[in-house]
């Protein structure tokens, strides 16, 4: 399989061709344009190593995310960044390449925080290993974390090792009637206290929180914070993570801002997650300039996440000096510009 990948990459490189690295295709809609012949990763599948007591799982890029989650659940562990699937057949490689994290992100960290090592095939067909299977590793630059979220633009990521965590002992969901300003203030105030808040969602005048942790911690927080207990909490968070929640239709912007940023006044409905740090906005792509101006002023950046006319630029433009570094990195990892052309910038 590795040899097949190499042949496909080398022949594309020598013929001036382009490749579109693709797993389950569940996130085809994400990012800038798609281009090139498909390089299907699904044939390179399987969990290579999983030692629950080491808190590490290593799997090939084409491994279905569902298979990994099932293996972890069997040992009462989880991917703490709670990645969205966005459809049947999502792969492990796609999770790392897209760098998207779910509701638990504000508490536990993002995909890149859990990546420990990556095996990459670069544009010359060379297999390179960065990082490893251990928690602490500062030998060489941390290229494996650089690759997380790189949208396959730097190479074909063959295999990843990620840190896993035990599932929490108890989990419960509570809700409060609250306006936007109060919700943002409350989430930030609670964030400064040792409370086991593992997810948050404000939408339509209701703030929903998930509490996860030790029995005693969750019990105490539930009593102390008040709020109304939600019965089907698990289902609520899954539908939010997968964006099956009713809010997510039409053209959706993702506003990544400091959690403490006050309400961002823009035309269009908003849904707030991550303690205030991730705000979704339903608004037309033509609003790009206004949206980016407001979000930049708040200290963040805006992505045209779903739908809409991508010609406005899916991702926020980079500062020129930072863009130069991007170009040089791309030229080193992928000298013939084979991989996922234009998917990111």
């Amino acid at each position, binding site marked *: 399989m590795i040899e097949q990948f190499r042949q496909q990459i080398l022949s594309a490189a020598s013929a001036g061709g382009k490749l579109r690295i693709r797993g389950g295709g569940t996130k085809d809609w994400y990012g800038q344009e798609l281009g090139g012949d498909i390089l299907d990763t699904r044939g390179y599948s399987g969990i290579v190593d999983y030692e*629950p007591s080491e808190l590490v799982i290593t799997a090939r890029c084409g491994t279905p995310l569902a298979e990994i989650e099932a293996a972890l659940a069997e040992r009462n562990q989880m991917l703490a960044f709670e990645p969205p699937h966005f459809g049947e057949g999502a792969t492990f490689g796609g999770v790392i390449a897209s760098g998207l994290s779910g509701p638990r992100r504000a508490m536990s960290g993002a995909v890149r925080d859990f990546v420990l090592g990556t095996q990459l095939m670069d544009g010359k067909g060379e297999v390179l290993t960065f990082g490893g299977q251990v928690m*602490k590793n500062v*030998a060489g630059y*941390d290229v494996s974390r650089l690759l997380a979220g790189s949208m396959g633009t730097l190479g074909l990521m063959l295999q990843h090792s990620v840190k896993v965590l035990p599932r929490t002992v108890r989990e419960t969901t509570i809700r409060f009637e609250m306006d936007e300003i109060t919700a943002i203030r409350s989430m930030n105030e609670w964030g400064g206290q040792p409370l086991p808040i593992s997810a948050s969602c404000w939408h339509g005048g209701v703030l929903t929180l998930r509490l996860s942790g030790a029995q005693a911690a969750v019990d105490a927080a539930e009593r102390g914070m008040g709020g109304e207990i939600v019965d089907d909490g698990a289902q609520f968070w899954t539908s939010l993570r997968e964006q099956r929640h009713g809010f997510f239709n039409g053209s959706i912007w993702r506003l*990544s801002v*400091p959690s403490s940023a006050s309400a961002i006044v823009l035309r269009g409905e908003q849904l707030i997650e991550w303690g205030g740090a991730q705000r979704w906005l339903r608004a037309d792509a033509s609003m790009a300039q206004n949206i980016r101006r407001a979000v930049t002023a708040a200290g*963040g950046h805006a992505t045209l996440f779903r739908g809409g006319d991508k010609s406005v630029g899916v991702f926020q433009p980079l500062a020129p000096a930072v863009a130069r570094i991007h170009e040089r*990195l791309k030229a080193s990892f992928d000298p013939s510009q084979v991989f996922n052309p234009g998917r*990111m910038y």
Partner: protein
Amino acid sequence: MTIDNERKLKVAAALRALLPAGCVLSEAEDTRPYECDGLAAYRQLPMIVTLPEDEAQVLAILNTCREMNVPIVPRGAGTGLSGGAMPIADGVVVSTARLNRIVRMEPFARLAVVQPGVRNLAISDAAAPHGLYYAPDPSSQIACTIGGNVAENSGGVHCLKYGLTIHNVMRVRVATIEGDIIELGGESLDAPGLDLLAVFIGSEGMLGIVTEVTVKLIPKPETARVIMASFDDVVTGGNAVASVIAAGIIPAGLEMMDRTSSRMVEPFVKAGYDTDAAAILLCEADGTRLEVDEEIARMSAVLAGAGASAITISHSEAERLRFWSGRKNAFPAAGRISPDYYCMDGTIPRKHLARVLLGIARMEETHGLRCANVFHAGDGNLHPLILFDANQPGEFERAEAFGADILALCVEVGGTITGEHGVGIEKINSMCLQFSRAELDMFFAVKRAFDAPFLLNPDKAIPTLNRCAEFGKMRVSGGVLPFAGLPRF
């Protein structure tokens, strides 16, 4: 190496024209304190030392050095243990010591914006009135600076639960060799484009000079308690660590010391350690009072089931700190019983602990030196302390060879040569064991993407082909990479 005096005068004059009086040192008596960092065995007097007072001055130094083709070595507090801040004979040291202001403290947003020369502990001290702190706590936290922590991706005894520098720094502002100011990361939870912040943290001062850092602050746990468990042999202790993790517990701290270490520190700090035990384990829980009681009970049961011969639980904050004081003072204690010591920093998959400890015990015999082992057991990061006397001819060389053998063993079992101290100059040869030529070339490419003229801390961390070839000759016959067939993933 002798420095061309004419060049030195020329560079010093150019820098003096840009910086305030007293910010450029060029006399040997003034630059002597900068000749080494925490790895004192490696020394080099720099040509010039600069002490910029603001970002504009950092940029001015970078521009001048680029125009005059002078290599630069950035330096924080100089507490690093791998020679990462060791100067270059014809180079300029850029010390961040005077960039020591806390710019903003934002308790509501739970972040602090600080200059690179602010000490690690000073951040937590400033955050304390708000019930917040900065989590990574390297043992040198009283002295080490946040800029140095960013350069090394420093850890500490609580990083299993709270993460390393990379998990706790949100944004850095960087002066580049090209004279630009760039911002990586942000005060939001992510930034557009490639995650350059991730590759910058731990880059050992080779990609740019940090002028400002935004760190994440987290709520201080209400309380913490620690268990001290004794084991009759280190393997049982190692297995007990695996049992705690397998039981679904992530302790706030999980440290192991062997008997050599506990006997080394006990007379010095009187921590109350069981010096008869082959190994002792410190296992901490933090959180609310109820949460901690619940976790301490679960951990005690697991440790007892895993064969602990004795279990003591701290009943007061003073007792907890006393239990930790021994571990935190392991390095100074080594200095007390031995004229010199050499601290290693390999990380291994924990399941290979027994094999590695037995290997180290055998090496003590072959190299004729003693070794005390302290171990961040939760995350597999070993700190063997090789005890030696540099005044005895040949002992330093033996200590170095002993250290290189330990690192080779760490790589062999699927680990890494450095968990948190960095490669610097010290472990640069061992990098040839861990990475292939193509991988090392890619590291150089990353460096060039940030530092095209190759002036920032050159000759550190990433070995050249020549260096590896020479090292190969020294260590193996036939120029074959050791463990060439070993999957290193």
